């Protein structure tokens, strides 16, 4: 027997010790890994994420678990909706139009880095110039209208009613979900799952075009305990994306605009969510179902299921076998 108290306590302790990471300080750098862990946990705390990564020996799902478990019992304060003035853009690109009001800002672009493995610190160096301050600061969201809003003249499927999504860490998800609840759940979806769902959804659409992808540092405000006035208490990086795709609008060819947002700077997460959201709005034959998407997106739920198969199933397995065994015996008679 294993994984029960019948097993030798020494063996269990040794197995636990084998799984323990090498002792050492939490890793430096690895900013995008830290951002991925924070995003999937739905909690932005870089220091906690680094500790979680070290403690989980680099296993992302393990680190996300540690972070979510830690955050689950902390008091949750309602924050005010982020004002566009509090969203300081650090990157804004449009693949639909070369020239968009308030301009395109490349910011940090990991996709543009070399994909060749370096063996020496400076080998294959790209002669990278120093980052210099731009002549002007990138705008806030208030000064940069959403590219999607500039397409009002096109037949675009009316998006489902907008509104605050409930915090998926605090409220259960019931189906059909509001769009806010859906987007909130996807915002902390597992990165690989989101990308896979976007690829599956894409196979059912003719085209997706990235209207806009932005990264920003958003200011988080909470009501001042005495005056009630919103005060800024924190800032966190957020990635957002809007993707246009084909959809029937009143029986005619038209478009739907999908939206995705997530904590952190792992841009593909936001783009994937926007593709999934656009596909859900477009609907149609063969489209992925909301229930399937939401079930597959939550990494901790899916990893939990897959890994729970390691638990003993001795009793249920006997029951599972008996049904077929009984049938076979009846056939023999």
């Amino acid at each position, binding site marked *: 027997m294993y994984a029960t108290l019948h097993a030798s306590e020494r063996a269990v302790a040794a197995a636990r010790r084998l799984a323990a990471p090498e002792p050492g300080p939490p890793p430096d750098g690895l900013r995008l890994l830290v951002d991925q862990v924070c995003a999937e946990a739905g909690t932005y705390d870089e220091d906690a994420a680094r500790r979680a990564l070290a403690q989980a020996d680099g296993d992302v799902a393990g680190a996300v678990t540690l972070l979510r478990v830690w955050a689950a019992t902390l008091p949750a304060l309602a924050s005010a909706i982020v004002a566009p003035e509090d969203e300081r853009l650090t990157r804004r690109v449009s693949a639909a139009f070369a*020239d968009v009001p308030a301009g395109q800002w490349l910011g940090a672009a990991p996709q543009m880095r070399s994909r060749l493995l370096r063996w020496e610190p400076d080998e294959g160096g790209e002669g990278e110039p120093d980052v210099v301050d731009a002549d002007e600061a990138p705008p806030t969201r208030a000064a940069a209208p959403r590219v999607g809003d*500039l397409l009002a003249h096109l037949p675009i499927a009316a998006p489902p009613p907008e509104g605050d999504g409930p915090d998926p860490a605090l409220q259960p998800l019931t189906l059909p979900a509001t769009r806010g609840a859906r987007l909130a759940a996807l915002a902390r979806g597992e990165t690989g799952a989101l990308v896979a769902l976007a690829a599956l959804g894409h196979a059912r659409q003719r*085209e997706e075009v990235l209207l806009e992808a932005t990264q920003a540092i958003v200011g988080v405000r909470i009501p001042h305990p005495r005056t009630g006035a919103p005060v800024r208490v924190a800032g966190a990086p957020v990635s957002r994306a809007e993707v246009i795709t084909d959809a029937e609008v009143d029986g005619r060819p038209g478009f739907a605009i999908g939206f995705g947002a997530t904590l952190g700077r792992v841009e593909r997460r936001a783009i994937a969510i926007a593709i999934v959201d656009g596909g859900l709005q477009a609907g149609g034959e063969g489209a992925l179902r909301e229930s399937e998407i939401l079930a597959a997106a939550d990494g901790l739920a899916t990893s939990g299921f897959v890994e729970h198969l390691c638990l003993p199933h001795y009793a249920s397995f006997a029951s599972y076998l008996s049904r077929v065994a009984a049938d076979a015996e009846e056939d023999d008679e």
Partner: protein
Amino acid sequence: MSPTVAELARAHARAMPYAYLDEGSKREVRRATLKALALPGRQVPFASREMPVARGWGSGGLQLTLSLVGPGDVVKVIDQGDDASLNASAMRDLIARTAGVETTTSTRAATIVQSRHRLPELPLRADQLLVLQMPHPEPLRRVVRDPARAARLHADGDVTPAWVELFDDEVRHGGPVGGADHPILVAGRTLASPSPVPRYDVLRLDRRPHPILLGAGRLARITALPPWTPVAPLAFDDRPLAPEPMGGPCDRCASTTSYRVEVRPGGGVWRCSDVDACRERAQA
């Protein structure tokens, strides 16, 4: 003195071959290319390598170019008609650095033009080669979900589902709604994807004097259109494929016949997408 085993082991996998790909990989791409040329319009599978550009960013086109480039070549790489695109420029640098070739932005000066989503507007000659980056080699993918069934339909020369899709679009929407990547009939019988070039370019594929090679790295397929291959858009006789409607003349070269895109949403300013052709027209 001959190297020690330790030295060889240390150096292993650290040196880069000519034109980036190792000879085995080049041979794989070339064999598939020859097969594709012998079977115009067919999707020929090849063992696509992981490239130093992301899959979907031109890895198929890049493998074609790198398997064919030689020291005497002059290479031009464009994205949406523009040499200055960051992705195109990164691939151009990789090709130039690893193959030691000259690069150019002039369509006329190039021996190999690698392009994403556009056919160069200045006509290519028989001694030039056009490589197109292709995301989706399967023209039936929207109507036939199962790739194995699609392959069987191609083998049987049965492209009915594509006609049905076209008819469906015609009845319900009054014309094809797909935009770029309108399916083509190669040599009157093989259904193929022209890559997501606009309909304007689909209408310019017929009987070109130069080979066109289409590479899909992510989906590991090569398709070829040998010189002078008859190519027609899939269309009913009484419903010919129409190019995209365009608003105004180019704000740089004043052309009214080029392929132009609106520079900013609803701004009413139109500009040629083929930068080199536009520059030539503006200087004329």
